[in-house]
């Protein structure tokens, strides 16, 4: 069973719909006790990093405890940024800190002086290494983004994307993974990536 963490950042309808299409059983836990019954956890979300403030100490503790039990964790968009140490968007607010570095604002560069922010639309994935998450995803495959802040490149990057600068568009380390784009709105490629995440964690308790 998958727990979808609802912390008030955007609606969960399209993520639920995509998981239903992949025959997943989903709950939206209203308490940390309910969260503890899940074998997988997804942290979705769009919007301002400050929204993650709603994932308070109690919930962070419950998610950390779940990770120690071998539960798989997947962050989508803002949920992926939250897996890093934090974001310039809300500098006083720490992320979960599973991955090193702080998310920074996308902005025009010398080579892209008219860059529009937010980064909205379909952009391509570069695959720096072989990962389970990107299994059978072609380099250059396109997925749907909508965001203004982006995560730095890290050794755990499973995909990178360039928009003005090159940032981490997917990350994977053991049972923890995340994507900056919206797999639930990225057509067949997005569903493939969601399915990959489900398969790579099919042995979890």
């Amino acid at each position, binding site marked *: 069973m998958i727990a979808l963490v609802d912390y008030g*950042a*955007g*609606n969960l*309808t*399209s993520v639920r*719909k*995509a998981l239903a*299409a992949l025959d997943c059983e989903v709950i939206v836990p209203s308490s940390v006790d309910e969260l503890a019954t899940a074998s997988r956890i997804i942290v979705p979300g*769009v*919007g*301002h990093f400050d929204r993650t403030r709603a994932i308070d100490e109690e919930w962070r503790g419950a998610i950390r405890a779940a990770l120690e039990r071998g539960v798989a964790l997947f962050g989508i968009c803002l949920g992926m940024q939250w897996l890093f140490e934090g974001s310039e968007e809300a500098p006083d607010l720490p992320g979960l800190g599973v991955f090193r570095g702080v998310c920074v604002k996308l902005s025009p560069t010398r080579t892209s002086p008219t860059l*529009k*922010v*937010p*980064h*909205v*639309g*379909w*952009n*391509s994935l570069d695959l720096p290494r072989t990962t389970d998450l990107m299994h059978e995803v072609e380099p250059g495959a*396109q997925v*749907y983004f*909508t*965001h203004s802040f982006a995560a730095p490149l890290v050794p755990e990057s499973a995909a990178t994307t*360039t*928009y003005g600068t090159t940032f981490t568009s997917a990350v994977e380390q053991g049972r923890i993974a995340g994507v900056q784009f*919206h797999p*639930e*709105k*990225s*057509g*067949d490629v*997005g*569903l493939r990536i969601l399915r990959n995440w489900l398969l790579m964690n099919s042995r979890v308790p």
Partner: protein
Amino acid sequence: MLSKRIIACLDVRDGRVVKGVNFEGLREAGDPAALAARYNREGIDEVVILDVTATLESRQARAHTIQAVAREIFLPLCVGGGIRTDDDAASAIEAGADKVSLNTAALNDPSLITRLATRYGSQAVIVAIDAKRNRARYEVYARSGSALTARDAVAWAREAAERGAGEILLTSIDRDGTRAGFECALTAAVSDAVPIPVIASGGAGEFEHFRDVFTTGHADAALAASIFHFKERSVSDLKSFLAAAGIPVRLC
């Protein structure tokens, strides 16, 4: 590289697509969900449902249409037409819309843009602007193009962006329905003035029109309705044409 988006617009009245449905041999044309499914197969990047009924009683019918379309596609879905209040936006988003498009309601109460952007994020708020040329400037019209306002299209787009809009959906009233091509001068004027993506609308008739609005019009996305209802004008053919013309598009 970020692709230029091709967006299909479904003009819906009482749950049926009403624009460009008079084509023989296209039985699915009236059903929004069937049409969305076809566009999805052909590689459309995004779908907009424009509800032209837009009465209070139609809110439930609209939710039903949104749900039916959302079941068919795993793509961004925007809903516009009759989004007048916070509750209208909430019901559209709960039904499965990723974005709502505001037009007259935003002109009447610009703070609605900020309220919805704060609640759902800027990415969920599109401000639609219907503009008509008057000598050297573009005037904004409300109420589906029937009511002239005192606003200038470029200035209003800037204000909408400052208030938290995530994208601008810009329709040329002069070109809408003419199939004479997008109004590239209007699109470029607005696109160059705002830091957010601009979707060009109104006038699509030939594949070349899309190329032109992406090059000279500086558009980030282009929206069309009836051109795609022709089977011989498929989204995939359009994208192949654009790719050959050097425009970055998503090929499926």
